C-alpha cells in the first residue's frame, strides 16, 4: 500500500491516516484512497480521516477534503488533525466541514 496512507480498523470504522504533505501532488491520490476504502466489502460504517501526521497542507489538501465530503457526505468524519491542518481550516472557514469523530469528541 502507498506509504502515505495507513489504514486501520477501530470499532467497525475505518481509520485512514495520512502522513507527509497534503498538497497538489497528493490531492487526487487522497480522494482515491478514501473511495477505495469505502468501496470494500463489507463496507465500514464510516471512515475517520486521521490528519495528525500531516506536516504541511495548502488549499489543494483542502480541495481533497472538499471533494471527499461532496462525494461521501457524513460517511467520512474528521479525526485528529495537526496544527498546520487546523490553521488552514481556520484560515478558509472550513473548520465545521466534517462532522467530528464521536470518539474524538468523547475523549
Amino acid at each position, binding site marked *: 500500500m502507498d506509504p502515505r496512507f495507513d489504514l486501520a480498523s477501530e470499532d467497525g470504522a475505518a481509520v485512514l491516516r495520512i502522513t507527509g504533505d497534503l*498538497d497538489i501532488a497528493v490531492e487526487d491520490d487522497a480522494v482515491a484512497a478514501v473511495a477505495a476504502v469505502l468501496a470494500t466489502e463489507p463496507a465500514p460504517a464510516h471512515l475517520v480521516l486521521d490528519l495528525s501526521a500531516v506536516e504541511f497542507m495548502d488549499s489543494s489538501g483542502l480541495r481533497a477534503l*472538499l471533494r471527499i465530503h461532496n462525494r461521501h457526505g457524513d460517511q467520512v468524519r474528521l479525526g485528529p488533525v495537526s496544527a498546520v491542518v487546523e490553521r488552514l481550516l481556520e484560515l478558509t472557514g472550513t473548520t465545521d466541514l466534517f462532522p467530528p469523530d464521536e470518539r474524538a469528541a468523547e475523549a
Partner: protein
Amino acid sequence: MTDDGAQETDTKDRSMAVFDRRVESASEARSWLTTFLHERDVEETVVMDAALIVSELVTNALRHGAGQTVLRVTVTAADVQLSVTDSGDAQPQLLPPDPDRVGGLGLVVVNSVSQDWGVAPFPGGKTVWALVGRPGP
C-alpha cells in the same frame, strides 16, 4: 550597481528558481524557499507563512498558468517579498470564501496570510507577488 557592497547585499538577500510544469514543483518550491529563508535566520512563523503562500502561488501557476514557473524571493529586515511568474494569460481572482465551492481557495489563503499581495500582468504572462511581514526587533 556600481558599489561592491551593494552588489554583495544583492546576491546575498535575493534569489530565484525555475520550476517545471509538474505537480512535484509545489513541494520543490517550498523546500527551496524554506532552505533559503532558514539560511538567513528568518523567523520560523514567517518561513511557514512564506512556504504556504509560495505553495499556493506555484500551484495556481501549475493549474491555471502556462510554461515554466519562476519564483523570486527577497529578504529584508522588514519582510519577505515573494513573486511567482508564469506565461499564462488568465488573471487570478479573489473570490469570497465559500466552503461549497471546490477551488478558488488558494488566493483566500494568500490574502489572509500575506501582508499585501497583487497581480502584475504583462504581455505574455503575469506575476503574482506577496509580502510576508517580519516581527519587529
